[in-house]
């Protein structure tokens, strides 16, 4: 095991009995994961993909059907959650409603049997760090959602755990606050350098916060990597579709040359750099392009497409265009242009070769 | 939560420690007459002897059932009051202790009972009727058992359940005796067997009578004196109770409400018994009670609570309000035979008569 490894999941499987009937449902299917010290990992996926179950397995609220979990070299698979030196920030915040903010944050320290003065010092410091110093005597129900979220975070941070676990902590906040809190979490985590595992279904959050993103689907890990890699080089069509928007085109590999696949589309030939996935000549593949990698212009020589809809969003103009018989999404992010094409108009479409990516054919 | 825990501990201590501390000399009396007499008797005994005396009031059938059920570990030491039939039944089952009280000689000879029990009072059965209700129903106060079968009295007669009440059993046995007399009169040897006990035919006839009476009964109460209260409260017209209980009612505010009558063909009577329970937990105190309860002083307590049963100690002054048994036609009440067949008869009554729906 790597010295830098903090948390390790080895072939973890979790099955639940089916509600009706006697069958079983596999929530987490053979997941292995190494998390380095100080790393911020996000488990990302649609609901029901097993990300929350994975987090609860790490926390110890569930026990794996098979597989092992290591923390700092110790096997903690069968250890109860209160002995694991991890703290969790919950989606519902789970503040103790009958305690003041101060007592909420001090709760874990009391259980550690720290001296009163130590507790006082640590709680004050953490509350100040979170900008909650003035609210120490309030009850949770007297706080705003953002403040409650901060208290929940403070309560977890004050324990100085080896691993900090987040279970969709921002999903109950409104959009503005969510962006703001996400920034704060990012700052704090970098500053305190605590190993963190973060569960969300929001790809923006995942990209903004993570060192690495683990995309999960149907209990399995689809792809694991840095946010840029996941976005630019998704391993599967599922990942490509789940992270951001993507347009797909079926194609055939004509040649492979200098680790680049040669494919043709709309009568044009493109050279697409290959990543890990191996391809062979003559293979059917799917060409993926992001909306922002497509340009529309009044260019009769380019591929002609029909504008189905055009929405002005401020940061971009989002077009839905009919390409042959598929509806594609195109984003014009040039700040200088407004809505250049009206609905029903025809435009010439060009594709940026450098942003193309090849996927295994999906069918 | 802490407060609760402390409270809990205190409670538990109290409940465990108190009974231990109270392990002085005590006496538990099984008392069958009316409650206020039980109170007066136990209080007087406690004052006299310093023995902490408590009682539980149970009607005689209940008392007998309870003594039987707890024979291995008796709860009571002495059983005081209630018709002698139940005492005789208990003696047959070996539930009572033999005791020769030095004071037994004070008692009229005919009430001295056997070795296990002694009579402490005597009283006759009668009808206690609500004057106003009788008038409304157009019925005279009953003077014979057959008067009770008058359809005008439907749902207007109350008596206790013979299984629980000695009073009701006395009424039942009275009817058995009357039926036996009638049979005997028709044909000698059919009413009584060679031992002088009523025959099965007499008993069956009595059951027939109570089956007919059942149509007029409102309710079988548990306690023998309770029907009197029903008559006093105007809930029934006629109650079959001991005449002294009717007099007691009259003295307690119902003097213009109820009237006390007797069946002319003959009525039953009770000898109120007293006995020590076999293996009594408080044997010494029980004997003290037994001796004391036979004295004139103890028997005089009855009148202070309006219980006008006739005392069995000739020295006891008799209230002029008491029913004079010489003026009442009493049946030849065979206590021994009554006691011997009691258990069987009440079980039969309970399954044959009581649960039947009335018309």
């Amino acid at each position, binding site marked *: 095991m790597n010295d830098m490894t903090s948390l390790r999941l080895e072939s973890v499987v979790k099955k639940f009995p089916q509600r009706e009937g006697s069958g079983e449902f596999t929530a987490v299917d053979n997941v292995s994961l190494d998390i380095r010290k100080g790393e911020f990992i996000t488990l990302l996926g649609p609901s029901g993909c097993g990300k929350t179950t994975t987090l609860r397995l790490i926390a110890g609220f569930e026990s794996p059907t098979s597989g092992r979990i290591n923390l700092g070299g110790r096997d903690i698979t069968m250890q109860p959650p209160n002995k694991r030196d991890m703290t969790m920030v919950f989606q519902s915040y789970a503040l103790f409603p009958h305690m003041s903010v101060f007592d909420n944050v001090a709760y874990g320290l009391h259980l550690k049997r720290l001296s009163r003065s130590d507790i006082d010092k640590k709680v004050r410091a953490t509350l100040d760090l979170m900008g909650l110093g003035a609210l120490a005597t309030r009850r949770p129900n007297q706080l705003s959602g953002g403040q409650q979220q901060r208290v929940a975070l403070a309560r977890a941070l004050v324990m100085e755990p080896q691993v900090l676990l987040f279970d969709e902590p921002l999903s109950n906040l409104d959009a503005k606050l969510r962006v703001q809190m996400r920034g704060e979490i990012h700052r704090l985590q970098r500053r305190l350098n605590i190993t963190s595992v973060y569960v969300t279904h929001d790809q923006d959050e995942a990209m903004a916060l993570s060192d690495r993103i683990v995309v999960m689907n149907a209990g399995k890990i689809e792809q694991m990597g840095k946010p840029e890699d996941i976005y630019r080089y998704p391993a599967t069509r599922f990942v490509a579709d789940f992270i951001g928007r993507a347009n797909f085109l079926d194609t055939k590999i004509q040649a492979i040359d200098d680790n680049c696949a040669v494919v043709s589309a709309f009568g044009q030939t493109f050279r697409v750099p290959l990543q890990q996935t191996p391809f062979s000549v003559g293979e059917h593949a799917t060409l993926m392009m992001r909306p922002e990698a497509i340009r529309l212009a009044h260019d009769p020589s380019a591929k002609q497409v029909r504008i189905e809809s055009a929405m002005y969003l401020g940061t971009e103009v989002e077009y839905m265009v009919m390409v042959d018989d598929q509806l594609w999404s195109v984003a014009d992010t040039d700040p200088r242009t407004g809505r250049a094409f009206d609905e029903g108009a025809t435009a010439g479409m060009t594709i940026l070769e450098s942003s193309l990516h090849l996927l295994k054919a999906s069918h | 939560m802490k407060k609760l825990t402390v409270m*809990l501990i205190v409670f538990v201590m109290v409940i465990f420690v108190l009974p231990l501390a109270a392990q002085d000399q005590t006496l538990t009396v099984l008392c069958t007459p009316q409650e*206020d007499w039980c109170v007066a008797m136990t209080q007087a005994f406690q004052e006299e002897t310093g023995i902490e005396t408590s009682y539980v009031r149970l009607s005689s059938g209940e008392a007998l059932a309870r003594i039987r059920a707890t024979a291995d570990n008796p709860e009571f030491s002495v059983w005081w009051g209630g018709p002698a039939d139940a005492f005789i039944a208990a003696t047959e089952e070996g539930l009572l202790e033999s005791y020769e009280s030095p004071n037994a000689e004070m008692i009229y000879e005919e009430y001295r009972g056997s070795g296990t029990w002694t009579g402490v009072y005597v009283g006759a059965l009668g009808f206690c009727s609500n004057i106003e209700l009788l008038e409304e129903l157009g019925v005279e106060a009953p003077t014979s058992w057959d008067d009770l079968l008058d359809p005008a009295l439907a749902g207007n007669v109350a008596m206790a359940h013979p*299984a629980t009440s000695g009073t009701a059993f006395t009424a039942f046995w009275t009817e058995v005796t009357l039926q036996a007399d009638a049979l005997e009169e028709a044909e000698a040897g059919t009413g009584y067997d060679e031992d002088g006990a009523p025959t099965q035919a007499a008993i069956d006839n009595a059951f027939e009578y109570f089956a007919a009476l059942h149509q007029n009964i409102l309710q079988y109460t548990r306690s023998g004196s309770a029907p009197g209260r029903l008559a006093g409260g105007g809930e029934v017209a006629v109650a079959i109770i001991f005449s002294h209980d009717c007099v007691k009612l009259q003295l307690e505010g119902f003097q213009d409400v109820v009237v006390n009558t007797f069946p002319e063909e003959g009525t039953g009577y009770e000898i109120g018994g007293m006995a020590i329970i076999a293996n009594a937990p408080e044997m010494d105190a029980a004997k003290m009670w037994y001796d004391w309860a036979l004295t004139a002083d103890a028997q005089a307590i009855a009148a202070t609570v309006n219980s006008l049963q006739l005392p069995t100690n000739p020295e006891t002054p008799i209230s002029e309000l008491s029913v004079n048994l010489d003026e009442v036609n009493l049946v030849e009440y065979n206590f021994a035979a009554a006691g011997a067949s009691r258990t069987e008869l009440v079980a039969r009554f309970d399954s044959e008569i009581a649960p039947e729906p009335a018309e």
Partner: protein
Amino acid sequence: MFTLQRTLKDFRRTFGDPVLALGLLVAVLFVFFTILLPIFSMISAGVSGDGLTSLQRFITDPVYLNIIRNTIVMGLTVALGGTLLGFLFAYVQVKVKAPFKRFIHIVALIPIISPPFALASAIIILFGRSGLITKGIFDTRCLWGEGRGCNDIYGLDGLTLVLSLSLFTVAYMNLKGMLEALDPALDEAATNLGGSKWHIFRTVTVPMLVPGLAGSFLLLFVEAIADLGNPLVLGGNYEVLATRIYISIVGLFDTNAAAALSVVLLVPSLTVFMVQRYWINRASVVSVTGKPTGKPQQIEHPVVRWVLWGIVMAFCLLIVTIYGTIFVGAFTEVLGVNNAFTLSHFDFVINGYGAEAMTDTTLLSAIATPIAGLMGIFIAFLVVRKPFPGRGALDFATMLGIALPGTILGIGYLIVFNNPIELTIPIGETPLVIPIIPKLTGGRALLGGALAIILVYIVRSVPAALRSGVSLLSQIDPAIEEASTSLGANNAQTFRRITLPLIRPAFLSGLMYAFARSMTTISAIVFLTTPQTRIMTAQILNEVENGRFGNAFAYCVILIIIVLISIAILTFLVGGSSAATRGLQGGR
């Protein structure tokens, strides 16, 4: 095999905490010895030997079939009457615009603290053949009809009236909660679509309440057929199973026959319990809608409004009159015969065994109540939060404590605990005898039989605590407890520092109800009292059976005062912690 192993593994992990494992063991042993064992012993006594002979007679003899029919008919009429009354009160309370609602609510709650026999005795005084109202005002001896064949208070009609009045509170609370939880948007939607109020009532309100109505109906049915006190006083010739069981014990001490009759009584009770558990609860959909968003619409139609209100107020008046009669009767020589003021009844009660009965009853109830509360909450905690095999069975067995008639439990105790329970191991000449449970009932019972009574009180109260615990715990986000665990607390610490404080206020109000229930229970303990342990309700029974209503009323007044004072004390102890209740919603 694989599944079984894993189940075991899960179980080991869940109960790896010794405190939790010990708690589970205690709960299981408690349920086994105090509920299941007595019930099984009672059943086995009823279906074997002499019991079987009696049982065969009871289910073939037309006389007993008639008694069984009487019992069922009474159960049905009371269930119908009580549910209707409860619904009427709840509907007026929630949906009708009318004055004195607070008064109506309080009057509807009064019967909870009603001692047994109080209502029946007062009803006789008011509506009996020489009742203050029947005879005094209307100069009749009947409730309806006239002449000799008229219907008086004794029998089915009187029983239905009294039992409906005593039991309708449960239906009222149940239906009131449901009516309040009904999403007003439903009403509004229906109105929007052009429905009249009557149409809405028929097509929206009632169908939504069906589970509640059915649940109340079944609950009242069981309570009615289990009731002992009222048929004893008011039954007249209307015999029911409960009174037959009672006479079998007190008059004949025939435990086998009593057990056989109890088996007969057990069948409808158990059936209803099963139906309620597996059908009604599943059909219940209303509570899921959560907090209503709008304000409930109220009936303003003058005729409907005032007629409904008038009926409810009439019943309120009746209840108030009845309780007034109890109070006045306690201070009157013989109400209706001699109306002079007197304190002699109180004198009798306090100088007789009343004082002892008061302290004994209060003490035993006060000991039983917190134990029952904690036990109930703990079992609720296990059932809701710890997914272990057999939790359904634990919940079911615990609920049997209240689902079955008290007489059944009482007879079970009499059979099981009349002798010490010992484990005899035949080793050598003198076999080794290990005492497990000492003799708890009858003569020379442990603590004068007090322990058996405490156990019965606990067994009868735990189910209520369990149900309220389950519903309270379901309202608490499990994440709150997980948060505590994640911060390093073990199960016991979490339970004590987080769970208990959160459910405390509602839990304590549940305890008050349990306490009142223990103080007023009769059927379960009537066979268990001993000379050393006197229970007020049994004393009241004694007075009522001897026709001394004045003394009985004095007891009732004292009993009511004790319960009210206890409630006041508890409220005082709990006071001010309503913040936590508010927090339950605020925690999110």
